[in-house]
């Protein structure tokens, strides 16, 4: 086999190279030639095409993402922010947590089980790379219409994949979202979040510092996984006739990942590594260049030392492979034996593949020199791959239909105006796919493992105890709303932030940090780019107003089928701290006679609501207003009142409005409630409005008898509007809206819990297989259609960390 060497490249300057097929533009290719002062070798070309892809270079998002850093509030809690694999937040003198959300959308469409599984695996390694023990996962999932046959293929696979990987890793799954909307039909969103905990002094760096240090590859063998994602083949149309041209799907091995985690943690604990980086979407290419660039050093790598699953692999394939469950370590030579011994104890492969080198001159950057069986195949400055990629200020234009869309307000739609119609609407909405019970999904996840799960779904936020002695805990929620963002991406992003913030705050936690996953269509579409810019602006400004920094995240572009983009979907994760986790506030009613108080104000806000969509198939108008100062106040009041024992439960109001919050609070422990509407909401369709409006900044709290005065006094003093609306009734077994209707809890439960089993239940497995089969054809066709859209980029799934300075994110 003849390999394209550096020498050969220098001698054959005019050899034609498939840079366009690799997703590089004419200009970008020219720039590479300038940097190298010759044409790139095949391996170098593969590396530049990966590192300069949207996925790794943020070339379209970079100019906007700067706002996260520029507008971020100063925080001395932040030990590592954007630029690291994940943000690290100090939560006590000795303990820090790290968390991040990342997408794995396109792979989950092609092969739902493995796509979702490796999505979990990827984010877990990001967290591990910071020196943290991963302790919990969450996931934000969006699928096409619930009844669509392809959803019957994608959803069960994605859910089983997340469970299959996370459960086998022993990570409790403590929350997330499951949302259905036709805009995600060909582009499901699988956003996985992981939380990790570390002693403050165990924080790891990715910098490959110290010339002479050894570069060790640890974990699984390298195979041809995901080569398609970065090779010429990936951007080509894949069709039914050419099976072999389909991108190779990465297959996850959670067992190996579990061993990798234990081995890494043992190495960190023993202070045996200088630098560490996970391998993911951009494989060895990303890990080598990023670690070297971070330290300003060079690196010498003997590529034939990389343990291969398939011996016939070529150098550029080894460099591009996306094989899972691998980590790159930088180790001092005298500690190498100890590192290899620890790896061996855990039964994971560890191989010295190279060494860190010093720059040739003090003001020169180091060079990455890679040989393959004594032939030099790469000789390039690592910084040029990581930091010198192209940056585009792509054209932006407000979508042409937006004015008309915003003028078509849902507030004018016909509303149920009598008690019978209202009762029927309540039951119908409770059974709707987006509002119904998600137990069918969440019971496929282990929530108990590790023994520190204090709250998990269907609670507003997942709450994890992170210190068994001191009682320190953290709360996490991840939220988004594509419909709101479609109507107004700036407000939509702020609403997503507000909801995640509120979900964390109602548990009594103090929100301290944000992560985000920005899911959008093609950045080459000016309308999509405008949506992206507006969403980033909304989120950055919102975080500044709430005084909590964005610590990291990722961008997923090209989520579209043909010309149709998904709803712009910024998904926001908020992390909060509970100094005493035993004081957490759960969401369910659990005490007879508790007084139910609605906090916040209810306006006529139905545009973009679940009701407008479910009942009228309507999406138009402007989304609910956001008042972040109010959100902050709401959170402070609940935390304050909870600490004084005035709150037995609290539940945030969001999709589906007040009545949905009441239903969920009743269903949790099977306690009923009696609710009376305020006088001004009793006539005509006003009861409907009160129950279904989606005004932000609201929550219901259950206050124990005897505490009402003290509780409401806090509200009044702090200027938070409150309304006593009813009482918890443990004996009646029904939800009563006085003067309107009464629904027995059994009837409610049947409506609320029956939907997902009916759609996806095991009982119908035979039928599901059939539809799944048809659906997989649809999937391939759809992917086929989608491919031309993505052809301009090297990888169909283009993901970047929400960070302008950072080097590429492994997926």
């Amino acid at each position, binding site marked *: 086999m003849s390999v394209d060497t550096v020498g050969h490249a220098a001698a054959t300057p005019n050899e034609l190279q498939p840079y366009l097929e690799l997703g590089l533009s004419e200009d970008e290719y020219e720039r590479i030639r300038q940097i190298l002062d010759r044409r790139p070798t095949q391996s170098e070309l593969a590396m530049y095409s990966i590192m300069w892809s949207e996925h790794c270079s943020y070339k379209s998002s970079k100019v906007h993402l700067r706002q996260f850093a520029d507008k971020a509030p100063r925080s001395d809690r932040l030990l590592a922010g954007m630029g690291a694999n994940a943000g690290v937040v100090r939560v006590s003198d000795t303990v820090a947590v790290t968390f991040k959300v990342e997408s794995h959308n396109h792979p989950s469409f092609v092969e739902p089980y*493995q796509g979702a599984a490796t999505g979990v695996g990827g984010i877990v390694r990001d967290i591990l790379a910071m020196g943290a023990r991963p302790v919990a996962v969450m996931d934000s999932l969006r699928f096409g219409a619930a009844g669509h046959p392809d959803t019957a293929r994608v959803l069960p696979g994605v859910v089983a994949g997340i469970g299959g990987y996370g459960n086998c890793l022993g990570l409790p799954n403590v929350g997330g979202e499951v949302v259905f909307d036709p805009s995600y039909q060909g582009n499901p969103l699988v956003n996985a979040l992981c939380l990790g905990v570390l002693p403050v002094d165990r924080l790891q760096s990715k910098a490959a510092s110290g010339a002479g240090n050894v570069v060790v590859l640890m974990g699984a063998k390298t*195979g041809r*996984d995901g080569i398609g994602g970065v090779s010429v083949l990936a951007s080509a149309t894949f069709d039914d006739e050419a099976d072999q041209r*389909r991108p190779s799907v990465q*297959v996850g091995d959670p067992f190996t990942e579990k061993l990798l985690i234990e081995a890494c943690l043992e190495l960190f604990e023993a202070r045996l590594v200088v630098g560490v980086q996970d391998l993911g979407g951009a494989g060895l290419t990303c890990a080598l260049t990023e670690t070297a660039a971070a330290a300003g050093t060079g690196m010498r790598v003997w590529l034939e030392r990389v343990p291969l*699953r398939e011996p016939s692999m070529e150098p550029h394939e080894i460099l591009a492979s996306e094989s899972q469950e691998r980590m790159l370590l930088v180790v001092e030579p005298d500690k190498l034996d100890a590192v290899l011994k620890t790896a061996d104890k855990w*039964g994971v492969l560890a191989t010295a593949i190279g060494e860190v080198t010093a720059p040739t001159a003090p003001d020169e950057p180091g060079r990455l020199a890679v040989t393959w069986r004594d032939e030099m195949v790469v000789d390039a400055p690592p910084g040029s791959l990581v930091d010198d990629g192209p940056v585009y200020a792509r054209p932006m234009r407000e979508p042409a239909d937006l004015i008309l869309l915003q003028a078509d307000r849902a507030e004018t739609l016909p509303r149920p105006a009598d008690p019978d119609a209202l009762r029927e609407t309540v039951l119908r909405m409770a059974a709707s796919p987006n509002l119904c019970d998600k137990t069918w999904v969440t019971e496929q996840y282990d929530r108990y493992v590790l023994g520190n799960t204090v709250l998990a779904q269907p609670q507003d936020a997942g709450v994890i105890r992170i210190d068994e002695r001191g009682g320190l805990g953290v709360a996490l929620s991840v939220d988004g709303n594509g419909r709101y963002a479609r109507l107004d991406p700036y407000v939509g992003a702020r609403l997503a932030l507000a909801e995640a913030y509120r979900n964390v705050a109602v548990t009594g936690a103090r929100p301290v940090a944000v992560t985000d996953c920005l899911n959008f269509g093609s950045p080459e579409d000016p309308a999509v780019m405008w949506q992206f810019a507006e969403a980033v602006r909304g989120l950055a400004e919102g975080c500044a107003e709430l005084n909590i920094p964005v610590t990291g995240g990722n961008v997923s572009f090209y989520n579209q089928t043909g010309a149709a983009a998904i709803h712009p979907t910024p998904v926001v994760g908020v992390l909060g701290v509970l100094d005493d986790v035993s004081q957490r506030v759960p969401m369910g009613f659990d005490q007879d006679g508790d007084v139910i108080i609605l906090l916040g104000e209810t306006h006529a806000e139905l545009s973009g609501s679940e009701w407008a969509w479910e009942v009228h198939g309507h999406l138009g108008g402007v989304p609910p207003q956001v008042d972040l100062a109010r959100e902050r106040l709401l959170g402070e009041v609940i935390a304050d009142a909870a600490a004084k024992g005035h709150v037995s439960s609290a539940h945030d109001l969001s999709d589906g409005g007040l009545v949905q919050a009441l239903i969920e609070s009743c269903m949790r422990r099977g306690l009923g409630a009696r609710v009376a509407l305020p006088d001004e909401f009793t006539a005509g369709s006003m009861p409907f409005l009160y129950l279904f409006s989606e005004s932000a900044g609201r929550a219901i709290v259950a206050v124990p008898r005897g505490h009402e005065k003290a509780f409401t006094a806090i509200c009044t003093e702090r200027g938070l509007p409150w309304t006593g609306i009813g009482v918890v009734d443990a004996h009646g077994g029904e939800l009563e809206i006085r003067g309107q209707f009464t629904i027995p809890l059994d009837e409610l439960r049947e409506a609320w819990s029956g939907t997902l089993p009916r759609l996806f239940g095991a009982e119908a497995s035979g039928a599901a297989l059939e539809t799944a*089969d048809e659906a997989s054809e649809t999937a391939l066709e759809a992917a086929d259609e989608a491919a031309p859209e993505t052809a301009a980029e090297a990888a169909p799934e283009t993901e970047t960390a929400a960070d302008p300075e950072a080097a590429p994110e492994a997926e």
Partner: protein
Amino acid sequence: MARVVVDVMLKPEILDPQGQAVANALPRLGVTDVSSVRIGRRIEIEFEGEPDLDRANEIAGRLLANPVIEEYAVRLEGSSP
């Protein structure tokens, strides 16, 4: 009765964690000369009438194997007692 046997295997380039775990366990049983183990599925299809290889191929391609990561082989099993 004649039946059609479908063997489904992961494509050679796809990681097989199951096979790998078994291969790694063999030395513990004293078996040291195995270099690779790969695990697949065998599916037996019985037709009401004559075994239909074309139909079996269709079933295998559309349902039994996931063409994204697996390949399959269809064969007729000789009449057995």
